[in-house]
């Protein structure tokens, strides 16, 4: 059967099919989240699912909790599609890799791709990605010195052959993990997700009586590309530059971006950016691209779904070896630490083109705080635990509204509930409250950070694996808005602040205090509506002392 024999495909029918594709990927995503073991998947929706045409062009992708998969999946499937010959593929085959430079920036993200067959022919692909709990090595933390320290890397290979998982590969994955059972569960969930996607895709093609995805694919991609280009056409053409200073690990960093806007697209270049760190906060370009494009698309055509067409006009590059285009074999485990600030970097460029549409900088990098019992606790028969509470600072003020306090952006994580954290681990969180005056002053105020205070509940020491940002360099304001308060980590009884990266040992009687950063303000503080300031004072979000930042308010 050829394309000409397909029933007439009216725009309404094509659109129904497009809607169905979008529904199928969301369903795939939900299936994966429900079955996942990794807390970061469950709490943050750190997964993705997509459908691709026979040429590997992405037609639909699930909108999940993290932007980190947006371009990465589209590129990874193209790569796998090139690597393996379509002629050799059989129904039930599934390919995979966790290569950070091909999949999603660090080893924990597994990417699977499965061909969909109809009448004996490959008609398209489904793909999904999920974050696995543990791949061995030094574990989730920035301490690795190269990728080999960070655990098991699986190059592109066939994970499932005609429905049968490769037993040797599964053995290797189990043997190289501290959490073999959870890993196995997560891999089966990924397999089930691919299979469900393929079944639904083929069932849909049967239902609508189409034998290939050519017409539908072109419709989806052309419509989306056209929409994206129209949105870009509303951005003034030009070249816009921005620099961010970041805490880094062993030394401070500069991130540089040049945004070039033409009628044909938006291109970002990271030339000028600092070189790589010795530790695992380096970012492969695919991951930096995902967050960069996400940020641009929040402002430029956010209503257009992600697919090969809508993504095509957005391109990102950077000199090899800069920290946003890290090359093998540097360590990359905590690539999200800087990945999550690339939106602030590129939005600083876009702001110059669209001063009235782009928010100020925010805390951006989440306070993801993996904690584990100290090694000797296990040896002495004490209570073992491993948790990963996530908390956030404030977002930047918007051009027409205050920033959001203690809210994730660009990530879509859920913050942890104290009662749950304390139920599963021997810790007490004594405080979790907004931090007054931490939001940058402005016509619109930045979102507030929060203060979290905690101790061990059983006097046993524990370890916190830190990789957070903006303790030295705060989120900056725009258009005269002031910076938010920087974050801070310290012991109540200690003299020195604790740096934001590395392992932190907390003794049984230590009282640990985290302040997450506030967001930057937008516009001149003296222009703030006096009623809004009065309300902030009444609510205790701004103190009398903090109100001085807004100038003379003694009216």
């Amino acid at each position, binding site marked *: 059967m050829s394309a000409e024999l397909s029933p007439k495909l*009216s725009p309404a029918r094509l659109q*129904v099919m497009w*809607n169905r594709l979008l529904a199928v990927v969301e369903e795939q995503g939900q299936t994966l989240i429900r079955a996942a*073991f990794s807390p970061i998947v469950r709490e943050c929706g750190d997964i993705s699912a997509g459908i691709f045409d026979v040429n590997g062009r992405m037609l639909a992708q699930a909108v999940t909790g993290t932007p980190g998969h947006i371009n990465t999946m589209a590129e990874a499937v193209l790569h796998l599609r090139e690597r393996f010959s379509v002629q050799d593929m059989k129904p039930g085959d599934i390919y995979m890799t966790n290569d950070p430079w091909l999949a999603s920036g660090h080893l924990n993200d597994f990417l699977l791709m499965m061909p969909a067959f109809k009448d004996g022919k490959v008609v398209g692909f489904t793909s999904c990605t999920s974050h696995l709990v543990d791949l061995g090595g030094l574990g989730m933390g920035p301490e690795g010195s190269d990728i080999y320290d960070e655990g098991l890397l699986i190059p592109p290979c066939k994970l499932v052959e005609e429905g049968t998982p490769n037993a040797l590969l599964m053995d290797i994955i189990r043997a190289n993990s501290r959490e073999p059972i959870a890993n196995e569960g997560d891999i089966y969930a990924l397999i*089930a997700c691919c299979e469900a996607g393929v079944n639904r895709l083929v069932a849909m093609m049967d239902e609508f009586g189409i034998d290939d995805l050519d017409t539908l694919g072109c419709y989806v991609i052309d419509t989306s590309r056209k929409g994206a280009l129209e949105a870009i056409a509303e951005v003034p053409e030009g070249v816009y530059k921005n620099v961010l200073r970041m805490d880094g690990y062993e030394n401070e960093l500069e991130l540089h971006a040049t945004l070039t806007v033409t009628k044909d697209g938006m291109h970002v270049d990271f030339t000028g950016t600092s070189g790589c760190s010795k530790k695992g906060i380096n970012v492969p370009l695919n991951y930096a691209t995902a967050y960069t494009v996400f940020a641009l698309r929040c402002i430029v055509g*956010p209503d257009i779904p992600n697919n090969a067409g809508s993504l095509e006009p957005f391109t990102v590059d950077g000199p090899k070896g800069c920290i946003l285009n890290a090359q093998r074999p540097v360590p990359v485990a905590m690539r999200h630490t800087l990945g999550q600030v690339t939106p602030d970097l590129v939005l600083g460029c876009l702001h110059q083109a669209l001063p009235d549409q782009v928010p100020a900088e925010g805390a951006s990098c989440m306070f993801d705080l993996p904690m584990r019992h100290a090694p000797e606790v296990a040896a002495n028969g004490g209570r073992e635990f491993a948790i990963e509470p996530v908390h956030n600072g404030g977002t930047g003020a918007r051009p027409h509204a205050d920033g959001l306090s203690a*809210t994730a952006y660009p990530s*879509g994580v859920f913050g942890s*509930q104290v009662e749950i954290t*304390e139920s599963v681990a021997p810790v007490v969180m004594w405080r979790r409250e907004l931090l007054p005056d931490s939001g940058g002053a402005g016509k619109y105020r930045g979102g507030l950070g929060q203060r979290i205070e905690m101790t061990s509940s059983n006097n046993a020491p524990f370890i916190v694996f830190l990789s957070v940002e903006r303790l030295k360099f705060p989120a900056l304001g725009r258009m005269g808005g002031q910076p938010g308060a920087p974050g801070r980590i310290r012991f109540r009884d200690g003299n020195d602040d604790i740096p934001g990266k590395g392992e932190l040992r907390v003794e049984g009687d230590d009282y640990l205090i985290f302040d997450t950063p506030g967001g930057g303000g937008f516009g001149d503080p003296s222009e703030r509506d006096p009623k809004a300031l009065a309300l902030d004072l009444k609510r205790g979000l701004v103190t009398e002392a903090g109100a001085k930042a807004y100038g003379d308010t003694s009216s």
Partner: protein
Amino acid sequence: MTTALRLAIDIGGTFTDTVLVSGDETILASTKTLTTHQNPAEGAMEGAERVMAQSGRSLMEVTGFIHGTTLATNALIERRGAVVATICTEGFRDILDIGYERRYSQYDINLEKPDLLVPRERSFVIRERMSAEGEVLVALDETQVERLLAELDASGAEAVAICLIHSYANPTHEKRLRDILAEHRPDLTISISSDVSPEAREFDRLCTTVANAYIQPLMESYLSRFIKQFAAQGVNCPILMMTAGGGMCTVETAARFPIRLVESGPAGGAILAARIAARSGLDQVLSFDVGGTTAKLCLIDKARPQTSRSFEIARAARFIKGSGMPVRIPVIEMIEIGAGGGSIAGVDRLGRLTVGPKSAGSEPGPVAFMRGGTEPTVTDSDITLGYIVPDTFAEGHIKLDPKGSKAALKRVIGERLNLDAIGSADGVSRIVDESMASAGRMHAVESGKDLGPRTMIAFGGNGPLHASRVARSAGVSRIVIPRNPGVGSAVGFLFASVSFEIVRSRYSLLDSMDMDDVNALFDIMIAEAKEVVAQGAGDAPTEVLRTAFMRYNGQGHEIEISLPDRALSPEDIAPLTAAFEEEYRKQFSRPVPGMQIEILNWAVRVATPERSVPPVPETPEPSVFKVSETRPVTCDVDGTAKDAAFVARADLKPGDRVRGPALIHEPQTTTLVSADFSAHLDAIGNLVLIQDQKGGAK
């Protein structure tokens, strides 16, 4: 006994539905009156008087009275409740403001977080602290009460929500604080979280307690007025209230936990569908309730509607998850989307056809209603396709203007997409039906279930009209349209049990569970629930259902596992493990042997037994109904012009069969039988639609 006479009143946003039933099954009279928003009891009284007059009975004869109302829901949505203050543990003033630290829409940088009713200037704290195990870490500092009272007075609070950390594990501080405040401020309404929602997760528990406190003063006065008014007219049986969980409780319980009354109307619809499922022996059902602005879908397995322990009130535009206020109460779980007869169709910036969630409602309504509506709606598309026939619509009470519908479709959609009016209408229908089907599929996936093998039970004003189109899109091949599909919810009330549910958190690993502790917890919960049920059911027999919510250690999704109705012992661990793995296999295809199983929540439901279910007698020999009238329609399968049989439902006898395309009309709605379906009437008057074997659709 033949003297039973039962009355059900469902007060909705626009209409109040009243149904009078004798014995168990026979509907003596039903009516729709306009809801009287100033004093909703008036509209209810009018409905009651009408059904009494129609049936020649009197209110004094009524032996059972069940009431459901959207008043609680509307007060929350329209922000018409009390001024509430919160009191939390020192260090946790900002539980509401911090929430889950999440934006509900990934790409929307301009969004605002939901308004959770209590601003920071009315959130107060007191020094105290419990551990997760319920041990006192810091005693309740009663010296701070004086300050608290001053703060409460200054804030103008009319109601207080108290939510202390880990109070679900040990409520003594909350109770003590409530008693002290009540003593000093007897006029203050006080809700404590360990009463309202004793589950772990401070944000959800506080939200639930706040919502309860917010509507408590309003509901108390409403309920007492309602009772007085009906007592004055001679009603002398107790009035029971319908809850979101699909059970009934006394007015006293309702006044204590008014939050449990939200969404009781839709729950009634699900109960009706469950009842039909039981009578017809249908194990897997999808109920499909479509009105003017929303569609609600519910999964019903083995005649039990799926339930959930949480719900979101007042979601922002587009019904997005996370954009509302979460409450943790037992509810019949439904997916609700902004798609109904009044949903407005348009074309977006990319040239994509869109339908809803904006609705023209009843004012101005669809273009065809000629009340000032100018934007084409789903109803306008159904008129243009010939599915709504103007002369029989709403028994002729509403005049329709089909030309207006066509012109609006052509202008708004056709001109952008190069389609004629019929092509535009066909597009609108396909988009809205796909989105309803898609919501159903997504809901099934989230529940680890499949839609394919289900029977759809469709009701509501627009349910029967869209049922076969949505069923096809959802892969469902069998549909049942009950009798009186327009007043389904109120009919459903009459089949509910008196029941009460309590969910309580206590964290434990299954392998190392402290049996005495869990058994003691159950004893307390069961005693509490029995006491509440006894108020409404007297000494009638009750059933106790115990459940545990289990998950693999580290996983997010909890699975509900039934427990035996007796004390647990260590011997139960192995069978419970097996039961969990079996259920896990069903939902996720493979269990994960060796993984630890943990339990966070425990639940009991105490209920009077369900009413007996007489099975549906066999349908008489099929006979082809002789169609005497046809109407031109656009076939929803292939888009061509066809003649559809035009049949009054009242003319069908059990066994009568009609092939699609057909329109089967009745006073409040029309059933569209698509060309790939045929319909017959079963022995008790349900309309049953069955899709042809594959190949019907070309």
